[in-house]
């Protein structure tokens, strides 16, 4: 079975371009999964026949394996804007509860996923965060609090579904000010100036001393 999957997939990859066009004719399989007909079907049949498998085995394996051929094989850059992963909010910020939602039912994998794990080690969190089932089959979500210490930038934690699908959730973390802003020149303020206070006290001391001298002279003059 697994062998057949691999065999079919590798056989199909070689003919990728022939099936990359979504406009190619599809028929509904027994499980409601679109199966491209024509050349691929003939290819699959011949592979299965070579493997000497029964028709039952072909029926259970073919829809998944054949369907994989219907999904165009994108270049790696297309993964970044993967529509099967969403991160909210994006951009996020340190200390913010951030929700990851993934759709694991990719046509490239073997069957529906029943569990998914978020590897948040690049965020400074656990590498094994179990995700909760979402609102539709194959959907999983997890909400994590980003560390207060996380730096600004782009992050790409990975999500592993147990059907073999791995998704990359790329999102941005914005910087948050860590200091109070400096928003004034002080021209209208009340004063707490150490230098002025010291100068004022010094002047007061001089004045007091001078006053004392004057008074003493005054008194000594009066005594004569």
């Amino acid at each position, binding site marked *: 079975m697994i062998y057949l999957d691999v065999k079919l997939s590798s056989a199909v990859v070689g003919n990728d371009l022939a099936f990359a066009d979504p406009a190619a004719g599809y028929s509904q399989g027994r499980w409601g999964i679109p199966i491209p007909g024509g050349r691929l079907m003939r290819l699959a049949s011949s592979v299965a026949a070579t493997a000497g498998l029964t028709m039952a085995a072909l029926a259970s394996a073919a829809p998944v394996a054949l369907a994989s051929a219907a999904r165009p094989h994108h270049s790696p850059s297309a993964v970044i804007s993967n529509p099967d992963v969403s991160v909210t909010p994006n951009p996020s910020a340190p200390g913010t509860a951030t929700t990851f939602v993934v759709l694991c039912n990719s046509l490239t994998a073997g069957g529906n996923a029943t569990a998914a794990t978020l590897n948040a080690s690049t965020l400074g969190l656990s590498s094994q965060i179990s995700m909760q089932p979402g609102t539709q089959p194959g959907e999983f979500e997890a909400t994590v609090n980003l560390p207060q210490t996380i730096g600004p930038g782009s992050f790409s934690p990975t999500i592993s579904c147990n059907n073999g699908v791995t998704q990359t959730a790329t999102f941005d973390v914005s910087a*948050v000010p860590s200091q109070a802003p*400096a928003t*004034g*020149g002080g021209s209208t303020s009340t004063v707490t*100036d150490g230098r002025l206070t010291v100068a004022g006290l010094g002047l007061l001391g001089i004045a007091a001393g001078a006053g004392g001298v004057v008074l003493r002279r005054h008194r000594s003059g009066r005594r004569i």
Partner: protein
Amino acid sequence: MSTRRRLRDALIAVAMAAGILVPFVGSSTLRWSPPPLPPASVALSGAKVAAGTRGTPGTGRPSLIRPMARSVPTSLYIPRISVRAKIISLGLTPSGAAAVPPLSTPFLTSWYDQGPTPGQPGTSVILGHVDSARVGPAIFYNLGELRPGDLIYVTLEDRQTAVFRVYSAALYLKADFPTRTVYSYTSWPTLRLITCGGEFDRATGHYLGNTVVFAQYIGQHAAANGP
């Protein structure tokens, strides 16, 4: 010569000196009255809001109003304190504070461009000076007069205008500035207006506190004419 009389004379001399010095020092620094500050009651409500609802406004959100698309803010209008200001985009200073326009342009405000734009979910931040040596009172001199219910209009690059309603105002010590309360993400769009306040430390050249006004997004203003 009695000791008591000598003491009395000394006291007179000190009083005379102080009488000359104090007005002299005072007149050189109090050319303007100090900027208004949020009253304790409003500051308290700010702390309550922050603690009770993790920085989100306590009042009910308008359910039919949708957050706005990201667009850089360009101007600000606060009718209550007659503020009309241009907004420039600035990031962080090397020390990690939100940057502010230079003191030579005391009537410019700045939007913290690493965060959401006004009207987007999250906390958008606009800063302005309270005063400058050249002009005295600056653009946010009267920020501390804002009270819950006052409106703030922020016009964006896409010509839309986001309207915010003040729900709290507070004065915080810079040394103990609650960066989480002020800057943390809010699921509903909120706005923070920040300036300086409290006493000024001439030795460091900085105020000891910050006045922060908290406002929540209440919708868009009719786009055609602006506020």
